[in-house]
């Protein structure tokens, strides 16, 4: 357990996201963005277990997962800016970050869209005789989709190496979980025979340890496992969300994972100097990421017609009209 690295991941995600919010409000990031602020300990604690050969699927709120798994912040920021140097050459954007070099099979604009893909990646790993696992992140809203239930069934039936990670932040867009779901999560997951753990999603070490325990089953070939991280998004569903659906007091039940962990590290004897120096180094890295994105060229409009297929097709100009 590398505590300083936990803190680095938490800090990187938080400060990346704060920059994204400011840059979005300044009109520099097109489209719209969903921030991970408040939930950082989930990505940091789970993905500290990522090994090369593992895969993950993410959600529309995917910046945290991408950063935690090591996607390079500069090419990620450039993607958010829509630049040609972006990790997807400007074709994905905030909600659709892919980087197979880091096992990242995609943030996904469709709620629960990553679940069947994760199950299939687990199937592919097993058919190839590979050892990796698939981290499948989704929110509470995804549990209303049919593919969530189908995916649990298939993963359990075929004992696939998938760790399902539910980030329960209480709201599917603006509708409360309890208002829109009749089932009890632990009982539901138990009905599929899948091991289940709930954890305080604001505490990175608790998340790390719960993940470690569940992964012992998954990595040993015992089939899928399910982690429910109870967490809270400190910002709206998207930047600009007027947030009329929730009360400010509700957030009090969810301590800031970054503040919480900084205090714990200091109490454990990590020096203020160590933390300050880590923070400064992250600030520089993230400043450089923004500078890189801003200095990067827009894609050539001709690139809009590239990347549909791997194999070249004959060029009939009227199809690209």
């Amino acid at each position, binding site marked *: 357990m590398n505590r300083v690295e936990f803190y680095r991941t938490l800090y990187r995600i938080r400060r990346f996201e704060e920059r994204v919010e400011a840059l979005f409000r300044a009109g520099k990031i097109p489209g719209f963005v969903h921030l991970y602020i408040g939930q950082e300990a989930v990505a940091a604690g789970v993905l500290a277990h990522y090994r090369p050969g593992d895969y993950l699927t993410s959600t529309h709120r995917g910046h945290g997962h991408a950063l935690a798994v090591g996607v390079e912040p500069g090419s990620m920021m450039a993607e958010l800016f829509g630049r040609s140097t972006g990790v997807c050459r400007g074709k994905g954007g905030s909600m659709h970050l892919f980087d*197979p070099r880091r096992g990242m099979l995609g943030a996904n604009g469709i709620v629960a869209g990553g679940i*069947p893909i994760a199950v299939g990646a687990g199937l592919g790993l097993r058919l190839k005789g590979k050892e990796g696992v698939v981290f499948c992140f989704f929110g509470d809203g995804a549990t209303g989709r049919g593919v969530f239930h189908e995916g649990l*069934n298939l993963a359990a039936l075929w004992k696939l190496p998938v760790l399902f990670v539910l980030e329960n932040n209480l709201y599917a867009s603006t509708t409360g979980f309890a208002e829109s779901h009749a089932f009890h999560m632990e009982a539901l997951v138990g009905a599929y025979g899948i091991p289940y753990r709930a954890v305080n999603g604001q505490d990175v070490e608790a998340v790390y340890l719960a993940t470690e325990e569940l992964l012992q089953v998954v990595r040993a070939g015992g089939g899928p496992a399910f982690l429910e991280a109870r967490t809270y998004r400190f910002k709206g569903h998207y930047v600009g969300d007027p947030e009329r659906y929730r009360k400010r007091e509700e957030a009090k039940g969810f301590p800031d994972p970054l503040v919480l962990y900084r205090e714990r590290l200091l109490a454990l004897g990590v020096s203020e100097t160590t933390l300050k120096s880590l923070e400064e180094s992250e600030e520089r890295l993230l400043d450089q990421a923004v500078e890189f994105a801003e200095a990067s060229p827009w894609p050539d409009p001709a690139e809009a017609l590239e990347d549909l297929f791997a194999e070249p097709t004959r060029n009939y100009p009227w199809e690209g009209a």
Partner: protein
Amino acid sequence: MREITFAEATREAMEEEMARDPRVFLMGEDIAKQGGVFGQFRGLAERFPGRVLDTPISEPTLVGATLGASLVGTRPVLDIHFADFLLLAMDELINQAASLRYMSGGRLQVPLVIRAPDGALRSAGAHHSKSLEALFLHLPGFKVVAPATPKDAKGLLKSAIRSEDPVLYLEHKALYSRKGPVPEGEVLTPLGQAEVLREGRDLTLLSYSLTLHKCLEAAGLLEAEGIFAEVVDLKTLYPLDWDTVLASAAKTGRVVVAHETWRFLGPGAEIAATLEEKLWSRLKAPVHRVGAAHVPIPFSPPLEKRVIPQVADILKAAKEVMAWR
């Protein structure tokens, strides 16, 4: 040359590709023990243990999971019972499988084949009779193939499995029992290539899948009346082989496009519009389209026959095109 059925050719393709490439696997409902809803894959599960998988009835997850498996370096072939059931999985097909390579700026590869039997056969009714290619041609990201002959059933399936891109492989249910010549040994039909099956000077009949055979029959009847029709098997609907289409249309100047899917906004509409844009001055008549009437496919045999294009409909369109001065 030996003659085998369309179903036997399909099975040979699957078996040869699974033997050739250990990354290829097959999954679907009733595919392992039953050998598929039409029995076309019987015995494969015994020959390739662990690589032919029976699944629950979960089409969205089956499409999404084969997509996921393709992303990590396997080459899945997913069998969907009936093309109609593709509609259950449209998110996974279109938002995901068709789009991920593009959305990732080419970082992801999606070597995925989805097989789906389509078309009307013996009053299966509206939920088991549809031909849905137009949807997958309209929405970018799938290569769409529709073999008409046993030779191409083998050659196109093999090419589809070897393709690095998602391929929707549509086979008309009425073709399974149809026999035709298939050479021994390797048969590969390239994706994106049409073939002139019958040469003619007076008009061009463009078609594919089962309707191609109706066009060939119509061409025979027309010849008896002294009209020589050229018949082109499109085979791959995307990417469409415009070179062959334009060449034949330019040669005859009169074109009928015939397909079993609905005429309204069907592939024939796109082909007709493009031919008129590209060959306006060389066409001797407006391009005519033959396709299903704009209703769900009805159950009762005379109703089904009324809605699905018949040889007589192709003949009628051909004569209208020929009558144009």
